[in-house]
């Protein structure tokens, strides 16, 4: 079974506007009207759960949830066919807002709340539930930011000695402190990758060097974004360039694309596909998700067709 843990889920609200009015406007011009809007359960692990459910894969979403917003998130997940196993906490699950301006969709404006404070008691309740479900897990996906109140070694505690293949998709200290638990696959948050190890990971060489240091810590695979349409996968066995032959101007909504990538890779690996095949499928899912208005593309046929646009090339024999 695949389990996803999203400690800080959200209600994602996306607004599409013709023009975002920021700056010196008169009071009459101040209002920006959205031409469309959309609302859905969000957070990295939640997005991966929805992707997998839409692919027909049974999975369980775990984490902390609170308030009216939390009820909406849980209801949305159940409607998607995801099994929910959340710990209820005081306070309100966060709402994350994305504004997409026509013609500039590839540079979304995002406003993310911090999330509710997690008490010691809630954290302990979660760990008890986690312990109960762990023996059933083939894959354990730990994803997204940590809400206030959780220690930065939260993912480390969950990832160590699980018996399942652990995937961590996160950024900052939550990610760096989890590496000693030697997870199977790591995907640093694209938005935070530049801050990884304090280095500016802008060049290919620096990305590979940083990735190799992570592999030395016991991680099997790390996938680091290199530009918007390319990623580099580094493992003990080699280095792969994953590239999409597509212009970024075709992108309409980048929110969730990273999660489609991770979800796609897990989905195909779980089906028994080879590593390169899984990388291509994941990247195709990410690109299609970015090209559409909807957060995550869930049509397998379309993803498989999009794989024609994706190349996965082995860079060298051993990292």
């Amino acid at each position: 079974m695949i389990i996803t843990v999203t400690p800080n889920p959200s209600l994602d609200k996306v607004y599409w506007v013709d023009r975002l009015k920021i700056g010196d406007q008169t009071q009459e011009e101040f209002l920006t009207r959205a031409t469309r809007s959309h609302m859905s359960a969000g957070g990295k692990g939640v997005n991966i759960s929805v992707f997998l459910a839409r692919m027909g894969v049974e999975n369980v979403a775990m984490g902390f949830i609170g308030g009216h917003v939390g009820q909406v998130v849980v209801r949305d997940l159940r409607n998607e066919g995801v099994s929910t196993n959340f710990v209820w906490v005081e306070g309100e699950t966060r709402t994350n807002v994305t504004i997409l301006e026509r013609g500039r969709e590839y540079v979304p404006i995002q406003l993310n709340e911090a999330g509710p404070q997690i008490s010691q008691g809630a954290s302990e309740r979660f760990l008890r539930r986690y312990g109960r479900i762990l023996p059933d897990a083939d894959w354990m996906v730990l994803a997204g930011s940590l809400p206030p109140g959780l220690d930065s070694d939260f993912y480390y505690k969950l990832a160590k000695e699980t018996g399942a293949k652990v995937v961590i998709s996160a950024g900052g200290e939550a990610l760096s402190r989890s590496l000693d638990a030697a997870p199977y696959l790591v995907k640093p948050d694209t938005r935070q990758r530049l801050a990884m190890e304090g280095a500016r990971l802008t060049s290919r060489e620096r990305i590979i060097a940083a990735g190799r240091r992570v592999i030395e810590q016991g991680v099997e695979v790390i996938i680091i974004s290199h530009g918007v349409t390319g990623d580099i996968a580094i493992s003990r066995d080699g280095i792969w360039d994953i590239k999409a032959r597509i212009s970024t101007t075709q992108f309409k909504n980048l929110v969730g694309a990273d999660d489609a990538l991770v979800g796609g890779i897990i989905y195909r690996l779980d089906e028994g596909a080879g590593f390169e095949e899984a990388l291509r499928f994941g990247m195709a899912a990410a690109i299609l998700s970015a090209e559409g208005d909807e957060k995550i593309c869930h049509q397998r046929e379309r993803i498989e067709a999009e794989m024609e646009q994706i190349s996965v090339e082995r860079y060298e024999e051993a990292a």
Partner: protein
Amino acid sequence: MKVNQIMTKDLTAVDEEISVRELIFILKNSELSNMPIVDAEGKLAGFISDKDVIKAALPGYFEMLHSTSFIPDMNQLSNKLAKIADNPIKTYMHRDVICLKEDDDDLQAADLIIRRNVRSLPVINSAGKLVGILRRIDLLRHLL
């Protein structure tokens, strides 16, 4: 159709050591009126409802009465509830729990829900682990 195709895939459950106060918090937030109780392995161990908590908060003589009009005010209930709020729910839970198996038929499930006059029933898999909950509304939505 099988129960696992129409149930709500909610694994919200508690262990028997949590307090009545915590249970009320979880029931309120999860919009549920009852809660499955699981053991350390996630196997179904019991069931508790808001009705059980109200019953536990009522004065001992209540069962002899036919009407609440003999109870002077809500203070007695409130005081009793405050006294039991930190007690573990194991004192008030049902251990002889009625449940459905995930591959039971929908008709079988409807029959059990009607005959037992319950709002929902926990659903378990072949290993005895909780996999969801079947509510009356899930059945109605499925039938329509």
